[in-house]
């Protein structure tokens, strides 16, 4: 239940209040409000002395929800409480929850973690996936390992501890995006099992969807889209994943996108496999 909350100061010469409407309510009652003129908001401005506002009590707490305007009378006409001049009503924090955002977006936030060798097609599938989701009216965001290394992770290199930190930060950011209700697609080599599992552990069960680009090294190397394998073979890059640094395949990924026979499925076909998974698990609706 998402009742919005009203915060107001105790009544004083400068009584002021803001009114928020609530999306749902459980009970109705009245608050007997003693106020002076000169306050800010709305219809209360013209009222002096005693007046009645439609109020909603939430969970018996000290917070009182207000709905509507002063002067409305409820069918019951009963008084809920009396608030005198010296009453101190607590300020209450209220926040929009993940569920609220998901209802608004008509989707569920999650992290799709695409892992695999350089050249295995991670970014390509990530882009294809974001395109399909967009056309279906879903909000997605791609955190590409390379792009993030230009910004948030620009202070990191490629030695083991920097890779781990790179992955950790992306995992934390992806978690925030998922909490915001976004379908966050992280696309990075992330070669070590331990680091990927640590990211998985950040999220509630089921919200971390590991997608393994299961493409053999020789296929990736033949593609060599950035010319990196060539440099690595020539010894010009050290510690390059697949050449002189290990890639640890996932043991329990949710989706493995494979290279079958001599043919590779197109990025769109691979993306559709991920879409089917998301659909089945209910991520594409609130």
């Amino acid at each position, binding site marked *: 239940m998402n009742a919005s909350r009203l915060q107001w100061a105790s009544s004083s010469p400068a009584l002021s209040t803001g009114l928020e409407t609530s999306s749902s309510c459980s009970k109705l009652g009245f608050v007997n409000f003693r106020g002076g003129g000169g306050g800010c908001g709305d219809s209360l401005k013209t009222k002096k002395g005693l007046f009645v506002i439609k109020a909603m009590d939430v969970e018996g707490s000290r917070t009182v929800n207000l709905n509507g305007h002063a002067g409305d009378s409820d069918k019951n006409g009963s008084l809920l409480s009396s608030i005198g001049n010296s009453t101190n009503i607590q300020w209450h924090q209220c926040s929009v929850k993940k569920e609220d955002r998901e209802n608004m977006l008509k989707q569920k936030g999650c992290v799709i973690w695409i892992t695999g060798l350089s050249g295995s097609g991670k970014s390509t599938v990530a882009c294809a996936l974001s*395109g399909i989701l967009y056309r279906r009216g879903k909000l997605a965001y791609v955190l590409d390992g390379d792009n993030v290394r230009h910004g948030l992770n620009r202070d990191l290199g490629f030695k083991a501890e920097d890779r781990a930190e790179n992955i950790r930060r992306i995992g934390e950011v992806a978690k925030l995006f998922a909490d915001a209700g976004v379908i966050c697609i992280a696309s990075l080599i992330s070669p070590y099992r331990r680091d990927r599992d640590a990211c998985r552990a950040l999220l509630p069960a089921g919200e971390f969807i590991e997608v393994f680009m299961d493409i053999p090294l020789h296929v990736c190397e033949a593609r060599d889209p950035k010319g990196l394998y060539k440099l690595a073979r020539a010894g010009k890059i050290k510690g390059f994943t697949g050449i002189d640094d290990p890639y640890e395949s996932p043991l329990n990924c949710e989706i493995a996108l494979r290279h079958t026979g001599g043919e590779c499925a197109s990025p769109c076909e691979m993306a559709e496999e991920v879409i089917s998974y998301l659909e089945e698990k209910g991520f594409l609706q609130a």
Partner: protein
Amino acid sequence: MSTISNSTNIFWQECPVGKAERQKLLNQKGCVVWITGLSGSGKSTLACSLSRELHSRGKLSYILDGDNLRHGINKDLGFKPEDRTENIRRVGFIVGEIAKLFADAGLICIASLISPYRKDRDACRAMLPDANFIEVFMNMPLELCESRDAKGLYKLARAGKIRGFTGIDDPYEQPLNCEIEIQQNNGVCPLPAALAGQVVTYLEEKGFLQVE
């Protein structure tokens, strides 16, 4: 397509779905609302109220504050206790970079942190192109913040149990050119809902709450 950046092996990957498409989907423009001010000045309260107000208008926002960052991404930044200024700078940098990503995703990102140094806030502003950085200064007097002392920190700071506490023995540098300044009216604090309304009006006027 990708291009090599300088001498690194890091490329820039481009995607057909960009910020413009996402903004169209959400019918809003991504931006960062950066709420700065002393501890207890009401930053988190405003952030919550603003988020609620935006949500009620069907706009997607997200709050970045100490609560969701301290135990997460900022957990192991290797803070050295003696280098407080540097730690503050790094927190500002990380929050700024994350906020930038959220704005790029099309969200209205509400960052709520003391951020006491002008230079660090200006660095965050510089990260965001197209005037998408909206600085909101909670200009509340120290006495008021201290009297609230919601987390008991001022008391500890006065007792010397916390060193370098902003407002007590570390400076807060007021913004010189913030977009919105929140102050008391004749000694009375405006309500969070009213303040949220003020920020929403600003966003509306500047065209953030719709896409033409």
